[in-house]
């Protein structure tokens, strides 16, 4: 029984409360720190790929404080609420989107030592909780009382339901090989060989479906700027808008971490049998792989145009899902005969 389980089962008291608060805040800080620099990285990388500089004014040559300044600006901005919006839901919606984004981080193991909740069904938990954000997005779209927002919300809902299925299906192969839904077990199963080599198709499906879950190009239909202006958050300003934006990047953080854990072997060294699995090295390996995945996401965003709504649905149901199902079947056969 780990220390955190002990903590959970201890009697309530102010000390425990404070411990929990401190732990939570720590995680929040780490995540927000990541988000801050992920946004900066995205802008810098996109800038480099698009022949421009990206932020370079606030915080020195690399614009290191640009995102901080942006978030501060959003904090100070006037909070505008449309007159005909549904007041209660308009306020709840950003929270509904934001909270699950942070909840999912609880189960992600970053290194052998550094992880929070070690629950048996970590993978399933991630998928279930991330689905909750959809409700927030739909609510935001509905509550804004704006047609563009509503359409964005609808698209988000349709898209997230459609792509959640291949997302889940694609990892079944990994679950078959590991025999566990626990993320730590999954990482440990990749000590010798990362699952990306065993399950390349699953990786592709997961990456594509993950991009769709993140609402990023080429699947950024819910907030398609050229069509729906900004989609579901078109009426939001100030810090409520920041909630949506932050949760988007927290999900980027989470899904990149999840891909690292599921397919790239987490904190294990990338070259097997190299025996470079030191306690400190784990964090470095994880970070490198993780940064690679984030870079891949940004790269995809810069390169592709957007899919159309019906094509998106068709792709999800007619291509990804059958391929994912076939992958499960093949994995089962392989597992049966070779392992």
């Amino acid at each position: 029984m780990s220390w955190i389980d002990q903590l959970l089962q201890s009697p309530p008291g102010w000390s425990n409360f404070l411990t929990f608060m401190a732990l939570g805040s720590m995680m929040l800080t780490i995540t927000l720190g990541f988000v801050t620099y992920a946004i900066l990285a995205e802008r810098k990388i996109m800038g480099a790929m698009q022949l421009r500089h990206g932020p370079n004014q606030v915080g020195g040559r690399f614009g290191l404080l640009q995102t901080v300044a942006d978030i501060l600006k959003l904090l100070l901005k006037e909070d505008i609420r449309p007159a005909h919006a549904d007041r209660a839901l308009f306020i709840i919606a950003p929270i509904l989107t934001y909270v699950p984004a942070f909840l999912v981080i609880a189960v992600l193991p970053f290194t052998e030592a550094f992880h929070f909740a070690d629950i048996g069904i970590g993978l399933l938990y991630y998928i279930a909780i991330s689905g909750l954000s959809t409700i927030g997005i739909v609510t935001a779209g509905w509550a804004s009382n704006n047609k563009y927002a509503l359409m964005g919300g609808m698209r988000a809902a349709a898209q997230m339901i459609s792509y959640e299925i291949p997302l889940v299906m694609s990892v079944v192969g990994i679950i078959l090989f590991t025999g566990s839904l626990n993320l730590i077990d999954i990482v440990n199963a990749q000590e010798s060989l990362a699952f990306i080599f065993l399950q390349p198709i699953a990786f592709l499906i997961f990456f594509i479906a993950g991009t769709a879950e993140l609402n990023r190009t080429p699947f950024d239909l819910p907030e398609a700027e050229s069509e729906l202006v900004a989609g579901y958050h078109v009426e939001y300003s100030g810090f409520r808008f920041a909630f949506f934006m932050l949760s988007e990047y927290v999900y980027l953080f989470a899904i990149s971490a999840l891909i690292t854990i599921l397919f790239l072997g987490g904190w294990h060294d990338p070259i097997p049998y190299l025996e470079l699995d030191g306690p400190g090295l784990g964090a470095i390996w994880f970070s490198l792989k993780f940064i690679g995945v984030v870079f891949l996401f940004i790269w995809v965003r810069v390169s592709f145009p957007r899919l159309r709504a019906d094509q998106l649905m068709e792709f999800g149901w007619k291509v990804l899902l059958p391929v994912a199902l076939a992958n499960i079947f093949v994995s089962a056969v392989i597992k049966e005969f070779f392992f």
Partner: protein
Amino acid sequence: MNGEVLVFLILASLAVIGGLLMLNLKKVVHMLLSLVLTFLSIAGLFIMLSAEFVAVVQVLIYSGAVTIMMIFGIMLTRHQDEQRVQKNRVRTWVVLIGILVFFYTMYEAITRFVSVEQASELHIENTKQIGMALYAKYVIPFELTSVLLLVALIGAIVLAKREEEEEVKQE
């Protein structure tokens, strides 16, 4: 009183509040969201019972899929935003008696329930145990259920198709 009881109380009352709000709110979307609250609280209760798998499935299926489907249904179709049901005295009484009977039955059942042994290791390999039970002990009911669902799925497609054809005819 330890944390468990406190959490239980919070979750239970949230679930009840969600249900009450669901019955009393006027806008359909509000009702739906209060339903989500109930679903989530129940998922929390499942976790307290060391039924992690069931809890997560509860979130995934009910809060995720079912709610979204309902939202779609509500938003895409014509409906009166506010509905008022006329109060019926007799009905109120019948409902009240029903509730009392239900409460009493549950009370009796719970007080007479004697747990044979306290399963202490429930949360360990929870999922595995469910899998074992489903695919070994209860495989026939499981298969029957899946057949039933399949039939329902096909039935839904057939019904939708027929209506479509009728619509074409009408036009």
